[in-house]
C-alpha cells in the first residue's frame, strides 16, 4: 500500500492560493518498507527463527535419528523401520508403554479427584484464605528433583519414615515396608508421589475457574430448593468443564512425559517395571549410548500425546468458543 502525501488544507478561507493535489512519489526504500509481504516476513522472522532452531530442528533431528542406528561416538546410517521393528518385540518397551498409560491414567484421575475437591474446599470462605492457597502451591513450586529425593528417602527400604512410624514407633508391623522392591508396590508408590506433586496445579487452576462462576446462579438454584449435589452437578461442573478440559490436557501431557520422579527414585527398576517411555528413551539413548533406539522410543510417544490432546479437546471441550466460534 502506497501512502499519498497531501498538502496541508488551507487554514484560512481568504485568498485561497493556488492549490493542487501534488502526489510525491516515495522513494524505493520507503516503498519497500511499506510493502506488506516484506513487513510480514520481517516481523515473523525472529519468531520463526527461534522456533526453527529450538523446536523444529531438534524435533526433526529426533525423528531422523529414530530411523538410523546412531550410537554415541558413531554417526549412524539410515536403517528405516529397524528400530521400531526391534521395539515391537521388545518386552521392556511394551512394559514401558503399559506403565506410561497406566501411570498417566491413574495419576490424572487421582490428581483431578483430589484437586477438584481441594478447589471446592478452598472456594469456601475460610479464615486465612490467601495464606492457605499459597501453602497449597508448595508441592508444585518445589523443584521436582527435590521432591523426588524426598520421596526416595520416604520409600527407602531401610530408612523410610513410614516404616519407622509403623514398625518402630507404633509397632503395627514387624517388618519394614518394601516400597520399591517389587513391581506393583513400586508402581503405586511412584503414582502416589506424582499425585502429591500434581494436585496443587489442578486445584489452583480449577479454583480460578470456580471463581468465574457467578454466585447469582447458586442463589437462583437455592431459591428453587436444589440440593448441594444438584448445584455441583448442574451448575459448577458444566461451567467448569471448559477450564477442566484445558487443565486436563496439560496435566496429561506433563504426566505422560514425566521423567525426573521416576529416574531419581527408581531409575526404572525394579527390573524395568517402572520405566516410563521417557525414562526408557533416555536410558537407551544416553547411558546405553543407542541414540537411534532412544529416539525411536521418544518418537513413539508422539501418537499418544496427540491422541490425549485431541481427546481432551473434543470430548471435554463442548463449548464453541473453545473451537474458535463465538458462544451462543
Amino acid at each position: 500500500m502506497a501512502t499519498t502525501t497531501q498538502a496541508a488544507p488551507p487554514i484560512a478561507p481568504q485568498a485561497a492560493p493556488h492549490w493542487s493535489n501534488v502526489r510525491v512519489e516515495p522513494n524505493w526504500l520507503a516503498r519497500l518498507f511499506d510493502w506488506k509481504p516484506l513487513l510480514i516476513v520481517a516481523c515473523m522472522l525472529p519468531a520463526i527463527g527461534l522456533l526453527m532452531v529450538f523446536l523444529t530442528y531438534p524435533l526433526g533431528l529426533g525423528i531422523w535419528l529414530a530411523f538410523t542406528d546412531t550410537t554415541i561416538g558413531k554417526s549412524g546410517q539410515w536403517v528405516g523401520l529397524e528400530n521400531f521393528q526391534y521395539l515391537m518385540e521388545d518386552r521392556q518397551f511394551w512394559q514401558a508403554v503399559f506403565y506410561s498409560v497406566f501411570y498417566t491414567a491413574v495419576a490424572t484421575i487421582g490428581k483431578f479427584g483430589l484437586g477438584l475437591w481441594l478447589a471446592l474446599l478452598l472456594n469456601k470462605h475460610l479464615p486465612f484464605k490467601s495464606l492457605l492457597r499459597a501453602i497449597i502451591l508448595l508441592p508444585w513450586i518445589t523443584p521436582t528433583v527435590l521432591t523426588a529425593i524426598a520421596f526416595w528417602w520416604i520409600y527407602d527400604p531401610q530408612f523410610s519414615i513410614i516404616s519407622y512410624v509403623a514398625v518402630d514407633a507404633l509397632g503395627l508391623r514387624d517388618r519394614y515396608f518394601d516400597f520399591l522392591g517389587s513391581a506393583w508396590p513400586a508402581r503405586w508408590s511412584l503414582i502416589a508421589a506424582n499425585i502429591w506433586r500434581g494436585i496443587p496445579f489442578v486445584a489452583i487452576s480449577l479454583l480460578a475457574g470456580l471463581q468465574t462462576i457467578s454466585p447469582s446462579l447458586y442463589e437462583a438454584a437455592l431459591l428453587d430448593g436444589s440440593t448441594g449435589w444438584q448445584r455441583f452437578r448442574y451448575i459448577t461442573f458444566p461451567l467448569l468443564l471448559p477450564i477442566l478440559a484445558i487443565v486436563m490436557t496439560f496435566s496429561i501431557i506433563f504426566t505422560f512425559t514425566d521423567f525426573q520422579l521416576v529416574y531419581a527414585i527408581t531409575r526404572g527398576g525394579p527390573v524395568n517395571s517402572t520405566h516410563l517411555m521417557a525414562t526408557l528413551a533416555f536410558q537407551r539413548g544416553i547411558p546405553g549410548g543407542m541414540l537411534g533406539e532412544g529416539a525411536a522410543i521418544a518418537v513413539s510417544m508422539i501418537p499418544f500425546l496427540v491422541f490425549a490432546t485431541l481427546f481432551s479437546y473434543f470430548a471435554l471441550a463442548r463449548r464453541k468458543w473453545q473451537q474458535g466460534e463465538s458462544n451462543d
Partner: protein
Amino acid sequence: MANIITRRDALRLTAGGAAALALGSQAGAQVPRADVAAPSLAPEKGASLRILRPARFVEPDETIFRANTAKFQQATGIETRVDFVGWEDIRQQSAVAANTGTGPDIVLGWAEDPHVYVDKIIELSDVAEYLGKRYGGWTFLGEKYGKKQGTNNWVGIPFGGTTGPAVFRRSALKEAGFSSIPNDHAGLLKLCQELKRINKPAGFALGNAVGDGNGFANWLIWSHGGYLVDEDGKVAINSKETIAALTFLKDLYASFVPGTLAWGDPSNNRAYAANEVWLTSNGVSLYFALKNDPATRAIAEDTDHQFMPFGTVGKAPQTSLILNAMVFRHTKFPNAAKSYIQFMLESEQYDPWLTGCLGYWSHTLRAYSKSAVWDSDPKLEVYRNGTENQFWSGYKGPISHAAGTVAAEYVMVQMCASVASGQATPEEAAREAERRSRRYYR
C-alpha cells in the same frame, strides 16, 4: 568444575598437597624403578593442555591430582587445565570431543573408551613401554585395557582401577560361626542363611546400580564359569553355567536384607553404615567413610575385606573399573600431552596420589605394589592387586563398546534381578539377556 591453574593456584595447591607430597616422596623411595631412558618428547612451543577426568570419589583424588598437575605446569611451563566431570557424563563428553575434533587434549575416560575411539586418538606405545620397563611391567588389566586388541600398540594409558570385593563385619561372621567368607558357593549360601538367622543379613545390589549391581551380577556368573561373550565376541550368556548361577541366586537372594532389588549405588553404603546390612561388596570408599567419621569408627574397626568366593573358577571372579587415559588426534601438542601422562605416572607424582587415595585406585604398574599405602592398613591387602584380576567387563570377548553398553543397560543385573524377584525362570532370564546382548554385539 572448570579449573584453570594460575600461578597463584599452583602455589596454593602445592602448599595444600605438601603434606601428602612430602609423605609421598619418602614413600616413593620404596617403589623400585629401573633407570630407563625416557622417550624424547620435546613439548611443542607455546603448548597448553586441557584434561578431562571423572570427578573424585575420595577427596585426595582431586587435590593431589591437581597438585601434581600444578607441578607439571611449574616444571615445564605448559599451561594445564583439568576439568572434573560427573562419572556418568564423561563418556558423552568424550564422544563429543572425538566426533567434533575439538575440546580436551587428554581424556581420562573409562575402561574401553580408547578402544572405541581408536581411529581418533594417537598411539602411546613409547610412553607405555617406557613406563612398563621402568616400573616392573603393567598389571594384567593395565595391559588388557592399554593395548589395542591383538596388537602390541598402546592406545590408552591405564591410570588405575577400582574394584569391589566383599566387605563384611567380623563380629557378625563370628556370631554366625565363620572366621572368613567361604570360598565356595555352598559355603557362602550357608553363611548368608546363618547371618539372616541371627538377624544380621547380607545384601548385594540387584537394582540399577552401575557399579555395585554389575559387580555382583558379574561375580555371580563368572564364579559359576559363565561368561557374556566368547573370545570372538559372540554372545554366550545363555549357557548351563549361567542357569546354574541364576538357580543358585534364587536361594541366596532369600537370605538378603529386603529391598536389594531397589538398591542404587549408594544404598549398600548407607545400609552398611546403619547396621542394616553386615556383608556386601564395595570399593574401599565405604571403609574410609566409616573410618573418618567418629560416629562410625567402631563399625570400621569391625570391618574387613575379602575377595568374593572364587566358586568354580579358582581365581577371584572380579574385575576393576579402569581409569584409562587417551590423547586425541586433534590435539596440537601431542608431545606435551604424552609428557604430561608420563609425568603423572612417575613415582614422584603417582605414589603420593596412590597413597592419598588410600587404596581407592589400585595401581596399574607392578612396582607400585611396594607403595607404602598397601602396608599402611592390613585391611587394604585385597585392593593391592586390584588390577591383576583376570576378568574384565565383557569377559571373554575383546574390549569393545558393546561391553560398556551391556553394563550401562544393566543387562546382566536385570537378568539376575528378574530371577531373584521371581518374574522369570533362570532359563527365561538367560534367553532375554542373550537377546538383548546380541543387539549390542551385532
